[in-house]
């Protein structure tokens, strides 16, 4: 009985840490469009409407 309780505690802690870790990783690898837009806005050198350098005038 004591063996089972000990294993159960270990299993719960292991699973909990894993779930929290995966949730954190998921947020990092899949940011929302708003989050990415804010990050892009902070980068003052980036203008998505600006043509690339090769795109000259006609």
């Amino acid at each position, binding site marked *: 009985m004591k063996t089972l309780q000990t*294993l159960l505690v*270990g*299993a719960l802690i*292991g699973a909990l840490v894993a779930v929290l870790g995966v949730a954190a990783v998921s947020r990092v690898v899949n940011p*929302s469009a708003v989050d990415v*837009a804010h990050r892009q*806005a902070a980068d003052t050198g980036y203008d*998505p*409407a600006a043509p690339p350098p090769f*795109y000259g005038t006609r």
Partner: protein
Amino acid sequence: MKKRIAGAALFGAGLFFLVVALSLGFVVVPLLSRIPFDLKPPVTAVIAHDATFVQATVVNDVPTAVIGHADLVSTTGINPDAAAAADIGGSMKNKAVVWNVFTQTRRSDTGDVISSSNGRIAMDRVTGAAVAWNGECYADQLGQACQASNIAYSGQLYAFPFNTRKTTYQYYDITLRKALPIEYQGTETVKGLTTYRFTQVVPERQLTVDSATLDFLAGSLAPGATGGSMWYSATRTVWVEPVTGSVVNYAEEQHRTLRTDSGASVVLLDAKFQYTPQTLTEVARQTSDGRLLLVGLGRWVPVALIVLALAALVSGFLLTRRAARPVPPAAHRADEDRTEPAPV
């Protein structure tokens, strides 16, 4: 007591590895199998050797069109627009990326610009297919603004689905403004990557062109003609890396003819475009990196973690059970009865 704690820790670590392994396969990799909002694809260039094309020019202060023969290089650059993507709501909220696409075609001998276009497209992050969005636009005429909703993209154009299948997809033809079937033809290796080859054949058909343009072309290119009709055909082949859905190689044969009212037929465009060697190398390199990440995290790392998890679970279980087992009384008696050796 220490053994019991160590056993429980090992068992917990085993379960940790197991949950992480399953999560990688069923949660993390599916989340990674989406086009990032800020993904900036490499600038791509296609070249058509010894192409025939129409070039607008000015002769004696009069705008005219002439037929040119030279290599053509068409370059495409893409700017991701996360702010525009953030504005897409409803069922596609956070499920679509927006790309601003700039393309310019030049003759390689003189550097003269033959054509330019820019567009804006929203694409499903998983399937790569265009999604209905009122911000889409396309402009390829001199001075024309990219006005929202002047085009309705559909089907694949710049990307294929993650985990592309050996089937027929719809591929958007920008000239016809509609998607047509592109069929799976076979599996080929490109730069060390396994790819699916798809081909789209557009049979010759008449294009809808405004009469002013037709009259201008006919008057410039076929003396005696005052008008006519424009005809178009194309064959496209794309090589798609199936895990990432990336187009790692591209070839296109395009043909346009002006059939004038005087009976003359003028070839307006006859070109076979294909990726330049530099583009092929760069796209294959980036695709290879993406494939390695998805296959590694979705297959190899989980397998290694499951092996580790099983070892830790079994070790933890055995250690905990051994620690909980009572010490046999006989052992105590043996210790108690043990006699010390007599000093010499």
